[in-house]
Structures are given as structure tokens and as C-alpha cells.
């Protein structure tokens, strides 16, 4: 199949280019990398190398002709390859094509080669794009005609869509200078319709309420689920956070607004530390506490992974950090990464989270120590930790008082709710059940005070 020679885009503003001179004549041999022709733009003149080895045919833009970028201006046939009919005239071309050698038409296999003219017959309005590019554009709400294609004949590929998104994000980041402070209460999503004491789920750093999706089908259905989103995460406002204490106050405030008689708390990582802090200040309203790989029990934390996740602005840079979060990296599929990246598309959200990581975990150290709170706590409490956690070492769990139940999961990393929801949920459901055996479901008295 002949290789097209295309008018390349050599600077950002270029839409058309002028062929200044050809270095190779029609029908002559050329090797990959040989100087093929010179182009001139408003700003520059440069030499273009041959994209293939073979013989040059169908030169359609003679020296002096100006054509749109992406236009095919000649074809290179492999040595001995049958030369097809000349390509049909194209509006972008300004020079009539020369004719290929006529004796080639007798070649029986010539019919199997796609003809350049077939490749040029599409209408101007219809964007040329790969299925991947169409899918990505659809998912990002973009129309294809705003995207510039870098592929053969200007075809838009997946990378072009991603580059377009990235450029727009970059522009957005410049105008917002990182992120702007917002006000308002934290968002709490409700799910499930059970009548018993609700389960309040608090996600970790750089996650959001969707992170509980894999776990939720396994949770006891008679408890409604409340999924809190931390500031600058998911759909919650980007409220400035000066310290862990300030963040905990926002969580308590959100909890109070819900006006719950009581709740079973499940917190993951940073959300675990916040759940513990919440239980510390509202002990009477907390029926049980399940801490998943919680922060707050020791100084060590892998800030490299956290800031890696927070910084990542595209799928390629996010995927390796996501894989660090789990024991079995193959869990992190391309779809998972894509979904995670979509949730992190807002550059302001990423900037907010970078700052938050710096506030809470400066120099890879957890600046908050909640061991005393854990010592004080009287509610049924358990800690669940993956032994292969690379973010927060599970050995910190050994600092917990003996009253606290400890479950150490083999071959599980920092995300037990995603890595092994079917094993995690029974542990959560059991503690909830046991806590309610101990103590009847919580109700409010006539004055709205928890009993």
C-alpha cells in the first residue's frame, strides 16, 4: 500500500503550507529520511524528510503550490509495488496529478491495493476520526470538529482528543490560578432504603463517594447508606482547610446537619481518621466504628503515592499511582483509570487536593495523631487493613488498644473496599449487627436528643 506524503503542520498557527521545492522527481527512488521537499510558511522554511522508502509518484503539489495541512501531496510506492491510478483531484490540491506508468494495470494483484482516490473521497464536513477518538470525544462532551487531527489525512486519534482536553484544562488552570475557595456544606449522598440505623461512609484522600460502589451491594440492605464527600472531592465545595482539625470540624458539621439519631461509621484512610475524630466528639450518636487502613495512627505515610495521584493530569500519569494503591495491579483496568481520570478532570479539584495533601501530610508524615481518641472511645470498633498496603503501613494498627478488633487481609493493598469487597463487607455487617445486639437501634427522644 503506498505511503502518503502529507503537508505537515510545522508550527502552531499554520493552516496551509507552500511547497518551495521537491528534492525528488516523479518516479525516482527515495529512502526513509531523505530530504523530500521544502516547505515555506509565513514564518519559516524547512526541509521535510521522506516518510518511507520506495518510489515517488503522483506529485500533486508542484513547487510553488500552496495546500492545506494534512493534504496528501504525493505517494511513495514500495520498490516493485504496482502503481495505482492517479488519485482524484481534490479541492485542497492546486496542481493536476501526473499519471502513473500505464503498464502496471496488467498486474493481476493491483486490484487488491486500495487506491489513493478511494481514500480521498470523503466529504469535507465529516470529521475523520478513529473509533477511540469518537468515544473519548463523546465521553467528554466534545464535538469532533473542534479537535485537530494529527494522523494520516488529518485523522483524529485518541491522543488528539486527549491533547485537546489537556490544553483546555491548562487554559482553565491559568484562569483560576489553581483553585478558588468556595463555601457551603459538604455533600452527603443517600442510597438504600432500609429503616435501621444508617451507615455513614467517609472516603479517603483523592477519592469520592463513587469509591464505595463495589462495596455497597454487599452491605446489609436494611441500613440506609450516607456517603459523605470531603471538601474539594467529588461534588463538595472547595472549602479552604488549614489543618486536620478544621477538616474534622467540617465533617462534624455535615454530620450534625443530617440530624441523625445515630450512625455506624465506616471511614477509609483519611476518612478513617475523620470518622475517628467524629466518633470522638459525638460518641453517643455513633453505634459502631469501622476503620479501613485509617490515617492517624502513626507518622508514616507514602506521600509520594498520594501526591502522585493528586498531581496526575492524564490517564498515563495516573495509572501507575493507582496501581501502587492495590496489591494486584491488574485490578486497575484501563476503564478504571479512565473513570478515575474523568472524576479528576477538573484541574481546580486537582490543585485543591495537592494543597490538601501538603497540609495534612507534609514531608510524607501524618501530622495528626488520633491514638488518644482511639483509647478514649467506648463504641464497638474494628480496624481492617491490607497486609500489602503500600500507602499507610498496617503495623500502625498494632498501636490500637486491645478492645479494638483487628482484621489483617492477605494480598490486599490500600483499597480493601475495591480489592476485596466481598470479604470486607461481612466484617462490616458483623460489627453493625453485634453493635445493635449490644444496644438497641438509636432513636431520638421528643426533644431531638439522642438517647
Amino acid at each position, binding site marked *: 500500500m503506498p505511503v502518503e506524503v502529507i503537508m505537515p503542520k510545522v508550527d502552531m498557527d499554520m493552516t496551509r503550507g507552500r511547497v518551495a521545492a521537491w528534492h525528488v522527481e516523479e518516479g525516482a527512488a527515495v529512502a526513509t529520511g531523505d530530504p523530500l521537499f521544502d516547505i515555506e510558511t509565513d514564518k519559516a522554511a524547512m526541509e521535510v524528510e521522506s516518510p518511507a522508502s520506495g518510489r515517488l509518484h503522483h506529485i500533486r503539489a508542484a513547487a510553488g503550490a500552496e495546500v492545506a495541512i494534512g493534504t496528501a501531496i504525493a505517494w511513495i510506492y514500495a520498490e516493485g509495488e504496482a502503481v495505482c491510478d492517479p488519485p482524484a483531484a481534490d479541492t485542497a490540491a492546486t496542481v493536476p496529478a501526473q499519471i502513473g506508468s500505464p503498464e502496471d494495470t496488467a498486474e493481476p494483484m493491483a486490484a487488491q491495493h486500495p487506491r489513493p482516490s478511494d481514500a480521498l473521497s470523503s466529504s469535507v464536513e465529516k470529521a475523520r476520526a*478513529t*473509533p477511540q477518538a469518537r468515544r473519548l470525544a463523546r465521553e467528554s462532551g466534545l464535538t469532533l470538529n473542534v479537535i485537530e487531527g494529527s*494522523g494520516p489525512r488529518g485523522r483524529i486519534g485518541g491522543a488528539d482528543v486527549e491533547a485537546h482536553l489537556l490544553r483546555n484544562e491548562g487554559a482553565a488552570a491559568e484562569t483560576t490560578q489553581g483553585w478558588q475557595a468556595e463555601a457551603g456544606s459538604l455533600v452527603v449522598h443517600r442510597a438504600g432504603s432500609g429503616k435501621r440505623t444508617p451507615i455513614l461512609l467517609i472516603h479517603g484522600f483523592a477519592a469520592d463517594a463513587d469509591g464505595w460502589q463495589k462495596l455497597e451491594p454487599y452491605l446489609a440492605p436494611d441500613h440506609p447508606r450516607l456517603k459523605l464527600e470531603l471538601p474539594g472531592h467529588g461534588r463538595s465545595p472547595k472549602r479552604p482547610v488549614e489543618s486536620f482539625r478544621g477538616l474534622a470540624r467540617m465533617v462534624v458539621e455535615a454530620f450534625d446537619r443530617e440530624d441523625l439519631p445515630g450512625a455506624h461509621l465506616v471511614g477509609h484512610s483519611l476518612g478513617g481518621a475523620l470518622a475517628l475524630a467524629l466518633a470522638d466528639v459525638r460518641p453517643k450518636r455513633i453505634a459502631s466504628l469501622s476503620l479501613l487502613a485509617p490515617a492517624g495512627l502513626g507518622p508514616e505515610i507514602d506521600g509520594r503515592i498520594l501526591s502522585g495521584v493528586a498531581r496526575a493530569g492524564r490517564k498515563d500519569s495516573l495509572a501507575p499511582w493507582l496501581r501502587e494503591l492495590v496489591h494486584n495491579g491488574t485490578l486497575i483496568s484501563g476503564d478504571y483509570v479512565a473513570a478515575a481520570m474523568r472524576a479528576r478532570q477538573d484541574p481546580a479539584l486537582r490543585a485543591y487536593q495537592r494543597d490538601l495533601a501538603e497540609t495534612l501530610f507534609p514531608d510524607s508524615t501524618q501530622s495528626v495523631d488520633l491514638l488518644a481518641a482511639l483509647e478514649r472511645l467506648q463504641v464497638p470498633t474494628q480496624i481492617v487493613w491490607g497486609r500489602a498496603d503500600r500507602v499507610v503501613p498496617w503495623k500502625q494498627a498494632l498501636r490500637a488498644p486491645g478492645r479494638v478488633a483487628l482484621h489483617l487481609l492477605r494480598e490486599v493493598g490500600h483499597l480493601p473496599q475495591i480489592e476485596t469487597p466481598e470479604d470486607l463487607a461481612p466484617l462490616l455487617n458483623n460489627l453493625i449487627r453485634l453493635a445493635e445486639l449490644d444496644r438497641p437501634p438509636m432513636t431520638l427522644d421528643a426533644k431531638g436528643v439522642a438517647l
Partner: protein
Amino acid sequence: MSMPLRETPTEVRELSYAEAIRDGLAVAMERDERVILMGEDIGVYGGAFQVSGDLVQRFGEDRVVDTPISELGGAGIAVGAALTGLRPVYEFQFSDFATLAMEQIVNQAAKLRFMLGGAVSVPLVMRFPAGSGTGAAAQHSQSLEAWFGHVPGLKVCQAATPYDAKGLLLAALEDPDPVMLFEHKLLYKTKGPVPEGHYTVPIGQAHLCRRGGDVTIVATAVMVHRALAAADKLAEEGIEAEVIDLRTIRPLDRKTVVESVAKTSRLMVVYEGVKTLGIGAEVSAMIAESEAFDYLDAPIVRLGGAEAPIPYNPDLEKAAVPQEPDILEAARSLVRGRL
């Protein structure tokens, strides 16, 4: 190797592909007295490619049967033997000669279960030394596996390694229906680890030989090795190819290929059979019809055999089927967005 083993074999040795098949035949004959071998010159001569070797000495002429030089007759006897409850393994000297036996394979073996309402089955295994590269010219070098892949009722496998050659043979002997095993002649002397004793490689399951995120190369038989060699060189250039050995071309392992293409967004199919209307067409169409379609970021590339009989001249013979440099160049063009 990470393939599931049905029974724990005792020891793993280095065997050639031909030795692995012989080993598999001997294991099957020891375990099951219904297993018999048939074919031209498979007795004292040891088989055209010395696959049966000394099996006639070990199991006797009643179980290692030299058949007359009539592929149609031999195949017919094998189909009949399978119908009576034996487990015949029929060897063609060259897969090209299967053209003489098509009536028995296509019209009888593949169809009897269906035509008799399931009252019978044809547990027949056929072995086909196939492919080019040995200087045996047009009538002894073809890759006809896709012909058989077009026939409902047949299963068609192409092992690329000694391990798979033995494992697929033993799986074929447990299958109630006719299984066609295509063995590339260039592979007979290649060596690889082969466990002792009985194990199977599931029919219909491809093998993900190499992981990579940039392009999926689906290959069969000797092309698997060329694709893997090309993948090593591509890796030095920063292109990570994922290589899938189909192992079975009917039924195709849709899941493995679809998942891989959804990941890499680029597909290349490399096979030795004639390019047109072959394995590449089937795999490409399967992807175009699948959920992986939306992930394609470049045209699908097929590298197949030339639209010509395999030439005798060694240089032309090489040029007639995909070689490692062809795979390299095509993968580069595909990944660097030149296609």
C-alpha cells in the same frame, strides 16, 4: 508456564515439539487402550517428520497402523474407527494431502453427530504437518487451517510450543468431536519445557504470551515466535506489544483478544495462511463487531501469506510469508500513527 494442569505432572524436561507430541501420544496410549495411531509410514519409518518414532516398537502394529497411500481411504477408516468407539489419531504426511481426504473430514466426520441427531459422535484427532520454510514448494508448504476453521463440527488448533503441542493433543483426545491439529513443520525441532505425564491445554483458550499496552499482535504457530522476537526489538524502541497466541482458531477465544484490543487500541493479526479470507479476516471482523470497536485508534493490520502458491526458490519462499522485519515495520507504522 502458567497454564492450568489437570493432573500434577512429575517432572518438566526440555523436549522438542516433535518429541512432545510423541510423548503425548505415548501417555494417551498407556492411559487408554482405545487410542490408536494411523497414517502413512508412521510405523517402522517413524513418520514423515519422525513424530511417531519408536511408538510401533512400544505399542505394536495393532495400535500403530501404517495405512496405504490413500488419504481418502485412511481418513475414512479413521472416521469409522472413531464411530465404533476407538480414539484414532490420523497423521497426514503433509497437511496439503488433506485435500484428498476432504470428503471424509468435511462431509462425514464434521457432520455425523448433527445428521444423526446426536446418536453418534466422532472422537477423531487428525494431525497435519503444515506451513512453509522447508523448501518443499507449492504442494507441500501450505497453511490450510482456515479451510477447516470454516466447517462447523470441527475444532482446529495450532500449537506454537512443545508444551501446547502435547497439552492440546491430550485435550483433543478427550474431546468427543473431531479435532484438527495443525503442526508447523518449522517448529518440530524447536525445544521447550514439557511436563511428564498427563496434562491438557484447553481447546478454545488463547495464550497471552507477552503483556504490553501499545499494540495487540495476534499470531498463530510459527508467527507467535516471530511476533515475540519483534516485540523484544520493539520494546527497545519504547513500543510495548502485547502478543496473543491464539492456539485454537475454531472456536476462537473472543474474550482474550477483545480485552487486549480494548486495552491497546491497536490490532495486528499475523498468520501464515493466505491473507485473504483467512484468520486475520475473522479476528478483525470479530473486533469490529465487538465492544472493543470503540477503542480502536488505528486501522487493523493483517500480515498474511502472499496471494500466490508458496515458491520453491528459498528467497521467494521467505518473501511469501510474514517475517520478523515485516512485523517490526508494520507495528512501528501502526503505533506511530502512520497508518
